């Protein structure tokens, strides 16, 4: 029994990269699932059974994290000391806060209005979704750049983009809530 690694990349035997080959990841997942499947350990010692259970638990968490590009990026950032929880509000650029504040204000004005506000809400949704798509495209570019250069400055850049994405995701959710509420 080799001790299993609790590091998600190491568990899968993968390089610590931001761009992952998803079909390859899936193949590795199924192969490891078979390897650690508790059914294969039923006749083994308690210790070995526990080992299989622990490995399976890590495997599932690791797969869930690595197959999702955003969760994967958060994981790799955390490994490298760019944890979102550690940075506090001081590292959010003021321009971003201003922008998000203004967008929220505009959304609030549309809120609770009658049906005449609907086209403006639809416009706002389009705008926020387009912003999210732009962010995702920026992220893909930065993923490639990091994997190529392994530059910590790129990680700092990605941290900023992910923060911005959280704000924009909230705006998308808010406007969608408003649109479905208005339709009811």
């Amino acid at each position, binding site marked *: 029994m080799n001790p299993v690694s609790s590091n998600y990349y190491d568990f899968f035997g993968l390089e610590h990269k931001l761009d992952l080959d998803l079909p390859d990841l899936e193949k590795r997942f199924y192969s490891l699932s078979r390897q650690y499947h508790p059914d294969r350990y039923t006749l083994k010692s308690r210790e070995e059974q526990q080992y299989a259970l622990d490995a399976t638990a890590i495997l599932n968490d690791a797969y869930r994290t690595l197959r999702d590009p955003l969760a994967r990026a958060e994981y790799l950032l955390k490994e490298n000391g760019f944890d*979102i929880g550690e940075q506090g*509000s001081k590292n*959010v650029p003021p321009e971003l*806060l201003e922008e*998000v504040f203004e967008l929220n204000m505009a959304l609030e004005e549309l809120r609770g209005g009658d049906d005449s506000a609907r086209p403006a809400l639809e416009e706002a949704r389009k705008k926020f979704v387009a912003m999210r798509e732009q962010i995702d495209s920026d992220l893909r570019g930065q993923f490639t750049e990091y994997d190529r250069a392994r530059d910590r400055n790129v990680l700092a850049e990605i941290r900023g983009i992910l923060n911005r994405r*959280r704000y924009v*995701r909230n705006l998308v959710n808010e406007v969608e809530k408003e649109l479905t509420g208005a339709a009811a």
Partner: protein
Amino acid sequence: MAYSDKVLDHYNHPRNVGSLDKADPNVGTGMVGAPECGDVMKLQVKVDATGVIAEAKFKTFGCGSAIASSSLATEWLKGKTVDEALAIKNTDIVNELSLPPVKIHCSVLAEDAIKAAISDYKRKQEERKPAEARA
């Protein structure tokens, strides 16, 4: 998770929502945010000639605890001197609102907003000094 009565009270009846003239040299503006949850909080103070905070306003987009924390902060700020305002700690807000551990960051955000608003006010006052000296 249930909100405390005090949080609900501030959430349902937020105090001092609004904004002050950002360009006014006696107004300090603090804009802070928590990317974890996508909250953004604006807090403003207006300081009178004696250095006492005469008005405080806020506008927060975020969860109930973030709104309650900033609402409470503006209540506390009014009538305090600038230095007394800086002494407000996030733990005071946590205790007053009985915030659970997962919501402590909302009180940190409010403390950061107070500090940002005061430092903006101080910066504006510093900038004004040379102009007055020349006059």
